């Protein structure tokens, strides 16, 4: 029985009426102009489905030039012709259970078939103990074919590393590609806008986007399915769509039929192909940063480029410079390369959202610890900020630095309190709790700073110069906001503490008083930094 992913409903989207629904791959394109966005059951599913849609979109629509991109952008919807043509060529490659099962390896032995729960990353299977899932090793859950299809795509992108069922003897596997970075998706008003915003010019014949080769294609277009043998030797990607559909694992689903409905009741997952490339050179949906090294000629970026990843408490907005700003030469940061064409092509006054998806594994890298999904506003004016005007970068750096310093001061406050009560708390489990009332309160106001900054920069483009007062205003407001958030966090934290004894209250008051002193100092330092930035501007003006 067929489950054709082009027609069957399995892609989780949010429709025009903001209600969730499922559509087929073909419908995702034909109705992209009226659908809002992709929304899977977990952030990793959303990210993986976006990557699959982008790979398919590139192969169907290109666009092979800036002109083609504009033609697609200006069109009310994606044209049907290219999709029909593509479909006629690869009609047999999208069946989940056919002779050439989609993104699977039919050569895997069926006797190695395990529980279908292995496919769902948050299910409790083997050593992968999770907190809330109640699946036991003896359970043989059956997954709906649509659910299995979503997790099939997700496992290729996000499967943790560690030991897998071997095809022959090789059990070890590297964590799948998207575990190494926060996956950034530029989101527009409709799914069509979103797809195009994330589609740079794609012309394999001309090596675009770099490093794409003429033979680049997603896995399903290859003449033969992958061999069940894992590719331990590592290989570089053929290009962007190869990377978007990177076969981190060899997978085979086992179909079961109930009342004319297909389900999946077993799966084999074995090690797949290992990647050999400098990630910063190949991955377009991630931001990177490099360490600065001091030489006698000054500070220069050196060493490997580290991808920006999401953290449990501190928001990804802290990496706003890496995520948003263009990077002139000798700069230690690299924004997601998909943003370069957004900066070039998108309308001036737009503010898009960067949705950043991530997965945190346990320290051994073998089990999922948590998933993340965060949003950062991306005003186009900020994406286009003049490379020579480094004030924006400096100001954003000071703003993030202030939040970091105050965050560290809050930790110091907790330490002071703990030390003062070391004797009576010796047996108490020390757990840092203050940060949880601080960091989560900052993304929204920082979004306001970014949006305000976008307006200032857009006005500057019209007026021909940046108003100094307007440029600094969001950053002055930010200082007051962070100070207020920190004080509120301290009040909430203090309220949770035991406060029966005078010793506890005095220790708390002492630590708090010293924190206030430091907070004042940090805010003064921040003011000095802003003033220095103002002075430089005046000097340059002179």
């Amino acid at each position, binding site marked *: 029985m067929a489950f054709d992913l082009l027609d069957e409903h399995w892609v989780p989207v949010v429709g025009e009426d903001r209600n969730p629904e499922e559509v087929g791959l073909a419908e995702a394109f034909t109705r992209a102009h009226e659908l809002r966005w992709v929304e899977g059951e977990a952030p990793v599913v959303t990210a993986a489905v976006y990557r699959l849609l982008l790979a398919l979109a590139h192969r169907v629509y290109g666009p092979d030039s800036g002109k083609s991109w504009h033609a697609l952008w200006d069109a009310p919807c994606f044209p049907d012709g290219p999709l029909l043509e593509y479909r006629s060529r690869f009609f047999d490659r999208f069946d989940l259970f056919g002779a050439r099962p989609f993104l699977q390896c039919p050569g895997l032995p069926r006797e190695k078939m395990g529980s279908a729960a292995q496919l769902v990353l948050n299910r409790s299977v083997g050593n992968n103990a999770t907190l809330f899932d109640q699946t036991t090793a003896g359970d043989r859950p059956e997954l709906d074919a649509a659910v299995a299809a979503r997790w099939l795509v997700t496992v290729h992108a996000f499967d943790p590393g560690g030991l897998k069922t071997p095809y022959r003897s090789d059990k070890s596997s590297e964590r799948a590609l998207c575990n190494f970075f926060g996956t950034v998706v530029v989101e527009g008003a409709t799914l069509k806008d979103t797809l195009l915003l994330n589609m740079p010019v794609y012309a394999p014949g001309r090596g675009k986007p770099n490093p794409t080769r003429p033979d680049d294609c997603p896995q399903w277009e290859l003449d033969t399915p992958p061999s069940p043998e894992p590719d331990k030797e590592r290989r570089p990607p053929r290009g962007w769509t190869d990377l978007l559909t990177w076969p981190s694992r060899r997978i085979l689903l086992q179909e079961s039929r109930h009342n004319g409905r297909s389900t999946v009741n077993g799966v084999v997952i074995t090690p797949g192909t290992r990647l050999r490339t400098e990630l910063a050179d190949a991955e377009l949906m991630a931001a990177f940063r490099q360490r600065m090294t001091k030489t006698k000629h000054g500070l220069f970026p050196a060493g490997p480029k580290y991808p920006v990843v999401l953290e449990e408490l501190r928001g990804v907005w802290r990496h706003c410079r890496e995520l948003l700003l263009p990077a002139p030469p000798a700069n230690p940061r690299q924004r997601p390369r998909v943003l370069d064409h957004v900066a070039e092509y998108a309308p001036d006054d737009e503010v898009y959202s960067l949705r950043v998806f991530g997965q945190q594994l346990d320290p051994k890298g073998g089990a999922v610890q948590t998933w993340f999904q965060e949003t950062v506003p991306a005003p186009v004016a900020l994406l286009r900020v003049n490379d020579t005007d480094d004030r924006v970068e400096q100001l954003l750096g000071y703003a993030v*630095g202030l939040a*970091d*310093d105050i*965050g*560290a*001061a809050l930790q*110091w406050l907790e*330490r*002071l309190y703990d030390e003062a009560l070391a004797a009576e708390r010796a047996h108490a489990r020390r757990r840092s709790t203050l940060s949880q009332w601080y960091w989560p309160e900052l993304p929204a106001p920082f979004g306001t700073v970014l949006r305000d900054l976008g307006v200032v920069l857009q006005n500057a483009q019209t007026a021909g110069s940046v108003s100094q007062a307007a440029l600094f205003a969001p950053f002055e407001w930010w200082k007051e906001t962070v100070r207020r958030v920190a004080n509120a966090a301290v009040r909430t934290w*203090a*309220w949770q503490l035991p*406060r*029966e*004894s*005078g*010793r506890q*209250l*005095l220790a*708390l*008051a*002492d630590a*708090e*008083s*010293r924190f206030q*002193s*430091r907070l004042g*100092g*940090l805010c003064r330092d921040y003011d000095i930094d802003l003033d220095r930035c103002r002075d430089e501007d005046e000097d340059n003006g002179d």
Partner: protein
Amino acid sequence: MVTDDHDRRRAFISNLYQLGDALHSHGHDARTADARKTLAQLRRSLTREYQPAALDFLFEQNPPAREEETWLLVAGLFALAPSSPNHGERRLPLGAAMRKVDQGASEARMRQLLSVAPNSVAHYVRQAVQLLRGHNIALNFESLLDDLVTLSSAPPNSRLAHQVRMKWARDFHRAIDSSVHADTDDRSGGASA
């Protein structure tokens, strides 16, 4: 109304301060004698429940009914230490005033004061006031009255009660901050991430 209550408290404390000033008014022997007598009555009210003269003085001040007991306590406490601040100094809130006393003794008393149940606060505040009188430190009875009114009306472990006790503790430490912790000490814990 809150504002009205607040104004009445201010007027009451102002009258108490005038009583204290009258103790030292030269050339007004009758006024000084009256003040001394009233303060003695108020002082006795701390240990003996029914003191007609103290109650007469109290009701002349027009206290809100729910605050009568606290006003009488504060009047008695003032009578214990009625001295005015020295020239150029100001009256200190409880925490800061305690800080000015020798550190070992005051910290122990402060700890007790912060720990006790609401119905025992009066006893410990009285001890604190006696300690301050011994060191000739003038207490700000206005803020003390506000705090005691809050403590007497707020549920024992409520946020309001906690805020009052935290204020005393903060005032106590703020005084330390200006004297003991240099700014360099404050910044030594490493602020950058």
